[in-house]
């Protein structure tokens, strides 16, 4: 069953892991959406020939396991601080390709001020937020993007408007800022949405390479463990809950945002 098929002349390879992914196993939960996002980013870095000048600035969350399996330089930042660290990196190495990888807890809860100011300054790095509406690593606690009605360990009975307030639509917030040149929200819950995510990431990366200003991609990712559903139910839960609060699409694509 697990033996690979012997290749025959009519077989051709149609899919492989990117070379920049050093290991195919990851330590995240079954059904997690974050590895899909990682694979897309690494594929694009490879495809665009950016590997040798890439600096990834990683935040703190489940995805903090990724730096050790990514064959690019990674600056590990503290929780919430990746945009400032990326600012310092990109300012002293303007020729580097710099992108951040944060979760919703990291960016929108802990570090909201940092990403807002970085966007307003039009820092020329690409910020990626993996939004699953929950603190995954700590075991299912509410973040600033937990949607109304969502059950977490700190919103027992569901996120309640009166008690917990409203979730933050981070992409729409960033898009208002003049320094933001490209803002899009994607998702990895269906094959077609994964293809679109790849397109948005590609366009955001190109925005940085053209020096047009701040580029931002929010990616909705599955977290069945902390949504308390079986792994296979993750994509459906995302479509029925996260996606209804956070509509997908390109929110802003502006030429020469920085003037």
């Amino acid at each position, binding site marked *: 069953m697990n033996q690979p098929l012997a290749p025959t002349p009519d077989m051709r390879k149609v899919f492989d892991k990117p070379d920049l992914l050093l290991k195919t196993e990851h330590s995240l939960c079954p059904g997690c959406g974050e590895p899909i996002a990682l694979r897309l980013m690494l594929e694009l870095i490879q495809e665009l020939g950016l590997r040798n000048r890439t600096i990834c600035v990683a935040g703190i969350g489940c995805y903090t396991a990724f730096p*050790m399996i990514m*064959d690019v*330089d990674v600056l*590990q*930042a*503290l929780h919430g*601080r990746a945009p*400032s*660290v990326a600012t310092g990196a990109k300012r002293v190495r303007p020729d580097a390709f710099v992108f951040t990888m944060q979760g919703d807890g990291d960016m929108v809860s802990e570090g909201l001020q940092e990403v807002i*100011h970085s966007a307003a300054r039009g820092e020329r790095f690409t910020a990626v937020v993996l939004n699953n509406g929950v603190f995954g690593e700590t075991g299912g606690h509410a973040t600033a993007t937990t949607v109304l009605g969502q059950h977490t360990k700190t919103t027992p009975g569901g996120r309640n408007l009166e008690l917990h307030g409203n979730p933050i639509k981070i992409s729409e917030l960033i898009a208002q800022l003049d320094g933001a040149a490209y803002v899009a929200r994607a998702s990895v819950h269906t094959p077609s949405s994964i293809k679109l995510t790849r397109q948005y990431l590609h366009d955001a990366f190109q925005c940085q390479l053209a020096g047009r200003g701040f580029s931002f991609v929010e990616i909705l990712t599955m977290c069945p463990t902390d949504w308390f559903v079986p792994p296979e139910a993750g994509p459906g839960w995302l479509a029925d809950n996260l996606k209804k609060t956070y509509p997908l699409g390109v929110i802003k694509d502006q030429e020469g945002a920085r003037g």
Partner: protein
Amino acid sequence: MSRRVLMEGSCAMAEGALQVGCRFYAGYPITPSTEILEYMAVRMPQVGGVCMNAESEIEAIGMVWGAAGCGVRSMIASTGQGISLMQESFAELANAQIPIVAVNMCRGQGDYFQATRGGGHGDYRFIVLAPASAQEAVDLIQEAFYLADKWRNPVLIMGDFLLAHTSELVEFRPSDELELPPKTWATTGAQGRRGITLSPLGPSEKLSTDLASALGKVTEKHPAIRAAEVRVDSGWVDDADLVVIAFGFPGRFVKYAVRLAREQGLRVGYVRPISLWPFPSAAIAEAAARAKALAVFELNAGQMIEDVQLAALGRVPLHAIGGISQDHSGFGVGPALTVENILGRIRDVYPRAAA
């Protein structure tokens, strides 16, 4: 050709940093450290560097983290309150072994514990240097960049209001640095090699799971730093009955008061720790072995005196002759910081048997 110029301590330190290759500065205005930021805003672009007026102290230290992590000599300055906000990053910069130079232009000397113990988490240490004049501040900040790179450890310069705002003649005389190893740990883009991770959480090598030895390296170097980097100024200690210990700008007042005491026939000496970590414990122990009493003058409620106690190990009586001293501004330049007051306090505690 070096020449002496009249400069405020703040500006002199900023210029000194630029002259040893500091090319990134981020700061947030706060008295009395603001002039460093102002100076950098003008001068940094002239030397091809970057100065960021960050939107918070937390963002400023993050920016410095990013720039220093990419291998560029980077600096930050603030005052105790702002330095408090940076403590999480300070601790983790030490754990990631990223060299930065930080300056705390304190209000008074109440930040001794903050500087030498740190408000961050874990087993980290900062090398801490406390200049007593603008010239010494220039020399020490230039050395600080070397020490930070040498040990891959942050270095903090602890100054104060008087150091920041007193104009003195200074000369920029960067000493020839010994050769440093290339910064192969810096994230520069992989440039043909295997990618690396620069992290406070664990190893640099991809796929490695050896967290213990990565974190071990952070503290394994501490004994060597203690052995190599003690800096101390002392005088009239050999025959002293009373040795006064003081650091920073107030240490300069103490030195003068001790000279006056000598002129008045009192056998008084002084020890001025220049490195607060590593602390010059041996010099204090030596003084304690010879003198009849020790006294500590510091502009706080009693902080460095704990390090003096640890070094003196109860051999002789130890007197606190400083204290919190404020004027209306709150910047820590109060009535206690006069030569007359210090001389009076020296007379108060001078060993009676010897007097």
